[in-house]
């Protein structure tokens, strides 16, 4: 199952549209998408507007691949479950976010072995194909852990209160 999520803040029509197009050509693959408040009407995928944290965790654990925007929540959650992530950055000039920070996030986190960054239908199609192939052979592995110095710095500050 492919799980698509656009996060809690804003819809992301461009992403949903290319996923819907892809699904029309790949009807055998189940696609479940959380799409936010959006005007675009999908024809090939199951959608919900929003999800509770429990439903979200459930889908993350069931998914073979996660498709989403380049949000830190999506990256951290996906890596936690060891799932391949195909991420499309939001562009400010297309009205998809307030600024272009997702482009720099994409540059930083595109380096993770589980993460592929895409920006068009063609790239999405290729990334899904690659992900299914590579994942069948040897799933990628990334570990994201909280820095001990960060925890100690905050912990010492709190103890000093």
């Amino acid at each position, binding site marked *: 199952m492919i799980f698509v999520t656009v996060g809690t803040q804003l819809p992301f029509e461009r992403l949903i549209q290319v996923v819907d197009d892809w699904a029309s050509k790949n009807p055998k693959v189940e696609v479940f998408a959380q799409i936010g408040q959006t005007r675009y009407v999908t024809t090939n995928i199951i959608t919900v507007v929003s999800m509770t*944290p429990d439903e979200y965790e459930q889908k993350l654990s069931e998914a073979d691949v996660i498709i989403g925007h380049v949000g*830190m929540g999506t990256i*951290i959650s996906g890596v936690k479950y060891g799932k391949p992530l195909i991420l499309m950055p939001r562009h400010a000039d297309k009205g998809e976010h307030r600024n272009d920070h997702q482009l720099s996030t994409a540059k930083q986190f595109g380096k993770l072995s589980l993460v592929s960054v895409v920006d068009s239908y063609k790239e999405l199609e290729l990334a899904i194909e690659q992900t299914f192939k590579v994942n069948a052979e040897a799933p990628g592995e990334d570990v994201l852990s*909280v*820095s001990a*110095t960060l925890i*100690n*710095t*905050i912990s010492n500050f709190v103890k000093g209160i």
Partner: protein
Amino acid sequence: MTKALFVSSSGGHWVQMCRLEPAFSDCELIYASTERSYHQHHPDNAFYYIPDASRWNKLRLLWQAFVVLITLLKVRPDVIITTGASVGLFALFFGRKLGSKTIWVDSIANCDTLSLSGIKAKKYADLYLTQWEHLADDDGPLFAGSVI
């Protein structure tokens, strides 16, 4: 027991903030966010809902600031920690006036510059942190590591 308020907007800010819980091992943790269903993450802790707002909608921002203030008056935390955005900035602003110690951890999504609310938070944060070493500055935020 030290009362710690964790407050942030929904999504990535929240996910990052919750990864800092181990730093508060002997504290009573209280949560507040702009997404009601997040109480599910910590069903045994007190949770306060704060209305969402973006900086484009001034009226909603004012309402959000007011609800943050009311929440602080109810909770009276000893320490407040946030990863953003406007809701966290309001919490530090009012929190400090009310005598709380304040911690700002700027979101790791901001790898080129500090976030807008992060820049404004400087004045109100007792502990002021960035998660990117290259954004640390002698009279700006401190870098001590990241949540990933």
